[in-house]
């Protein structure tokens, strides 16, 4: 197990001031698979996800304890870690599509230039990544128009392409479909599923059907003693079939949550 896990989390706790959002979570995230994090609202899934690439740093008063290791050699939570370089390896796609209100091309150029990619390579990267999310044919003739002219689903696919452009090892998805209409949601979901085997995907979702469709691994979050924690984890098919935790069982069968 150890050799194949991309990220291993052990004993992770996250506090915002006095409020403990996540307590003592341990999880191995396997390489090249899609891991889904499910559970009711307010159980720490998003906080956990944000801790994985240190976006928790942005919240004043947020304290992270425990260990998160990338590829067994990089300690993500260590204060000496180069956060910006880390975020190049672990990308993030947010709930609401958030392209920069500039041209589609600039949306790629800004991060690529910041990470030192040569200007000459950029057009090829843009084309490859836009093809990966099926946007190339739709936008190839208007790369210099504002990204905000795209529809919601297109914007979200642009955000995925923008994350892919940095060639990350892991991409974190924070409920990527919940702000989209069902049709667009389906398209985005298909493109996430297509990433399997190429990058490691961690996805937070409220949509159990979606988790059932795309997840290889499943982790169920639940609030215990006022803090979020993982109550059930394992391969998706097995976990959906026969969960051992009673709360998780009721939640996965649709009775609660």
């Amino acid at each position, binding site marked *: 197990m150890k050799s194949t896990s991309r990220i291993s989390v052990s004993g992770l706790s996250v506090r915002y001031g006095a409020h403990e959002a996540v307590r003592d979570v341990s999880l191995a995230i396997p390489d090249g698979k899609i891991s889904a994090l499910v559970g009711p609202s307010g159980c720490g899934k998003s906080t956990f996800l944000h801790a994985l690439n240190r*976006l928790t740093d942005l919240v004043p008063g947020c304290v992270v304890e425990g260990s998160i290791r990338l590829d067994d050699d990089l300690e993500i939570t260590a204060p000496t870690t180069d956060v910006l370089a880390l975020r190049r390896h672990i990308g993030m796609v947010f709930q609401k599509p958030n392209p*920069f209100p500039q041209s589609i091309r600039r949306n790629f150029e800004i*991060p690529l230039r910041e990470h030192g990619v040569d200007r000459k390579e950029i057009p090829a990267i843009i084309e490859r990544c836009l093809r990966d999310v099926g946007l190339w044919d739709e936008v190839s003739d208007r790369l210099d128009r504002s990204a905000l002219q795209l529809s919601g689903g297109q914007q979200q696919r642009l955000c995925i392409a923008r994350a892919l452009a940095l060639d990350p090892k892991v991409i974190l998805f924070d409920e990527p479909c919940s702000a989209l209409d069902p049709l667009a949601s389906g398209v985005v979901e298909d493109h996430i599923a297509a990433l399997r085997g190429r990058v490691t995907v961690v996805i937070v979702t409220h949509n159990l059907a979606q988790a059932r469709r795309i997840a290889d691994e499943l982790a169920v979050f639940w609030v215990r003693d006022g803090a979020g924690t993982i109550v059930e984890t394992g391969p998706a098919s097995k976990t959906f079939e026969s969960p051992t935790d009673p709360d998780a069982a009721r939640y996965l069968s649709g009775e609660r949550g």
Partner: protein
Amino acid sequence: MCRSPRTDRVVQVVLGGLALLAGGLVLLIFVFLFLGAWPALEPGRLPNLFTDETWRPGSQRDPQFGLLPMLAASVLVTALATAIAAPMGIAGAVFHRFYLPDRWEKANHRLLELLAGVPSVVFGFWGLTVLVPAINHLHPPGQSLLAAGIVLGLMILPTIAITSQAALRAVPENQLLAAAGLGLGRARTILSIALPAAKSGIGAGILLAIARAIGETMAVVMVCGNIAEYPSSVFDPVRPVTSTIALEMGYATASHKALLYTAGLVLMLVTAALVGWLSFRKPNPVESAT
């Protein structure tokens, strides 16, 4: 305590009258300026405003009514003031927004609000007693385009800083999150994400400051030297439109007076055009600044 709907109607009519009066006031001002300026606007006289080389309206023998050197002075002083205040105001706002803790930014906001209220005559007085001697030391005479530009720049600095701060604060959080998620550093986030997103708000603040600078009188009249000629360097004295009105209205008569009204009319139209154009643009970040 039950009043009849009739009281309602009376109240409505009275308040409507007040509103009409308040809204129509600007029209009244325009009409009076126009009437005062009319003698100078007659077709035969108008070209003189732009062809005469200098401003010597009181002279019996060869009166000269050239308005251009003064308009140029207004534009130059305003441009210099903006060139000083805009970079400082924006850079300061960036520092407070992205480099300092929140409470510093609030304290700074408070300070800027207080500074925005410092009377222009006090700025002018400071310029006359401290800045002008200093510039004189550097390059006489001291009362100059430079002095006017600096004093005016300081006056509009709080306006630009406050609007820039508000515009930076209004950059959507999810944009900053996206930048962080892509591993963009703080400086890159500021230069490539936050400033472009805040561009129109900052621009509105600068235009508002420019409108204020063009119309400013007291801070300028005391330090600009008041000589109505084109300056050849920043150390030369100049005489903007507002100064001319303030200095000459007290004794002007007849056609001279009409010219001063014309100058006032031009000022009013320029600032109205600036502010009008601002409020027609779709998002209106201006209100908090005034």
